[in-house]
């Protein structure tokens, strides 16, 4: 084991391989506040990549309802329990990662899912955190009763547990974009990767008898096009691009801006220690800060505050960066706000987005004298 820098933990940590960051890291930001759980992302992926025989239960993309949903069954609850206590002191994680807490004879903390664990992809769907009561309830923010959708794909981690777990080194991380892939010629179906990945985003193909995982639509990414699950998101919750480290973050890169500058997008279960590269804007309506910290780390409440400030017009730049989500099929590399307009460019400098930050609205009178009717909608 060697010491590597994990900026999400604000400290170094032990990992079997030396730090070797890709030239750039493919990354995404998911806004949980906008996700409606429609599973269009799931189907966009499923119909493209995993509709073959043997892939029936492979959901490289899934959307689960938190707090009760999980796929495979109880993936996170089981991993968290195995990991033991997880403590933060300020922004620094003082607990152990899954690598540092590895039992004797193992590379990491982990468990092997059983077949039936994959049989309930909709478990907990739309179930709130507490039992509904019959008492009168007045809605307020944050909610006392809540749930939210958590869309999940492979995190294409900086320190992938699957990669370090594979005894055959069949899993590799591409230096050009950080996408993590399984070599389909070399994998022998040992499934150590399934056991190692705490997010359980590696799957076993029943027919080919080897492991498979999200490929982040690399053929599209290589052409400057966003992955299918991102392009097809009808809730427009997904931003895709490349993320730097805190030291190399560019303020005009939308992903860097959301993750490093405004810090509204946070990693999922950073305490596992993988430095995952899908970032989440935490749900504003969840009252349980402890739950949010468990999922997204100690920055969850500050992220929500920053997000809400943007929504009421206090941070036009942040609002602009958020509005770029699913505004184009192209991968955005740079954005700029001038006045009330946001413009974004692809890697080759071509302008791919230009739109107002606030859509102009016209308010009409409530009563239409010409038709002699009251309008239901006046904006």
């Amino acid at each position, binding site marked *: 084991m060697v010491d590597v820098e994990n900026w999400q933990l604000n400290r170094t940590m032990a990992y079997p391989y030396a730090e070797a960051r890709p030239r750039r890291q493919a990354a995404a930001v998911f806004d949980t506040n906008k996700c409606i759980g429609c599973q269009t992302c799931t189907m966009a992926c499923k*119909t493209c990549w995993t*509709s*073959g*025989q*043997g*892939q*029936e239960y492979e959901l490289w993309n899934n959307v689960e309802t938190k707090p009760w949903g999980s796929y495979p069954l109880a993936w996170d609850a089981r991993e968290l329990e195995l990991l033991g206590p997880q403590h933060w002191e300020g922004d620094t994680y003082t607990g152990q990662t899954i690598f540092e807490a590895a039992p*004797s*004879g*193992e*590379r990491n903390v982990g468990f*092997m*899912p*059983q*077949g039936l664990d*994959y049989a309930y992809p909709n478990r907990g769907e739309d179930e709130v955190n507490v039992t509904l009561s019959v008492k009168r309830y007045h809605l307020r923010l944050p909610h006392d009763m809540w749930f939210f959708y958590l869309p999940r794909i492979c995190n294409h981690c900086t320190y992938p547990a699957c990669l370090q*777990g594979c*005894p*055959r*080194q069949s899993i590799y991380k591409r230096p050009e974009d950080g996408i993590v892939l399984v070599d*389909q*010629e*070399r*994998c*022998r*179906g*040992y*499934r*150590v990767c*399934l056991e190692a990945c705490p997010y359980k985003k590696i*799957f*076993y*193909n*029943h*027919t*080919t*008898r*080897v492991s*498979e995982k999200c490929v982040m639509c690399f053929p599209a990414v290589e052409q400057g096009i966003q992955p299918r699950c991102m392009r097809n998101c009808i809730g427009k919750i997904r931003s895709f691009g490349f993320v730097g480290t805190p030291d190399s973050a560019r303020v005009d890169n939308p992903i860097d801006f959301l993750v490093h500058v405004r810090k509204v997008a946070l990693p999922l279960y950073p305490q596992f220690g993988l430095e995952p590269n899908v970032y989440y804007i935490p749900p504003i309506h969840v009252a349980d800060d402890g739950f949010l910290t468990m999922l997204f780390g100690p920055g969850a409440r500050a992220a929500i505050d920053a997000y809400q400030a943007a929504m009421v017009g206090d941070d036009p730049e942040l609002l602009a960066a958020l509005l770029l989500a699913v505004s184009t099929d192209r991968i955005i590399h740079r954005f700029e706000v001038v006045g009330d307009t946001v413009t974004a460019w692809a890697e080759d400098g071509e302008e791919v987005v230009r739109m107002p930050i606030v859509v102009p609205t016209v308010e009409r009178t409530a009563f239409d004298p010409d038709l002699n009717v009251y309008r239901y909608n006046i904006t």
Partner: protein
Amino acid sequence: MTTTSGVSRRRLITGTAAATGAAALAGCAPDYRDDLGPGDIIAVRVGRVPVDDPDSGTWGGAPEKTVELAPQQIALPHRETPVVPAIRVRALHDGRVIGFRMEWDDPDVDDMTVRVDDFRDACAVLLAPGAGDETVRTMGTALTAATLLHWKADWQRDLDHGRAGLATAYPNRSVDVYPPLIDEPPGEVAMADYEDAGAGEWLPGTHVDNPMSLATRATPVEKIVANGFSTSTTTPTQDATGRGVRHGDGWRVVIAKPLTARDDGETDLRNGSDATCAFAIWSGADGDAGGRKSPSATVYRLVMDT
């Protein structure tokens, strides 16, 4: 000249238990060479190695070696204790082929790798140059390649009963449609249909000829060359053979290969020189795969009977 059991004349001349028949020879083998010791395994020369018959009486013509197993505590993840203390090994050759018969106790039959929690029973023979070279025990070294002959219970089942698939593991499954084969009833879709329909990419491992993923196979034994942990590579020529059967509460498996090496790094046994051999077993019920195995505690000098 050979006897009915195929044992060589030299074997009968020098054997201490000659004339009592092959069955009685089991465990009562003669000394072939004065210098044979506990660290040696002799491959007795016979007329023909019964490569597809673990129950053949010919195997009784070879002395049985009790091979003690050990933990695997070098490469992560470990197996901290072997699943059984020892296995029983015999070896034969016929001038063209060398065969090993391995027997061990395993009450659970794990011969399918369809479901995510299915792991196979398996066994392997390691062959390498040298006369009992201990350095090659961990799948060879950077300088000395090891030949691994790996029998897999699921491959054996595929050969004996047809390839196990979804219908085997999930007989009550229901699938709406497989999009690339939309005109075919999903319950009747076969692996070959994908290539026939020009949709081979939907079976990725099969499409790139991963040995684990083949739709059909000719042998339950994979021939592999390795230069240490994490380097095992399926050889271009797959000429290892064998057969495994259940015997009581355990497995009885024959693993064989031609004496002549046909692939780079493969151990060649043609000249009759001493070589190195070692063994390992995997228990599917215990989740064994890859480095989670029970290897022999030591390597053995492989002596070729002449």
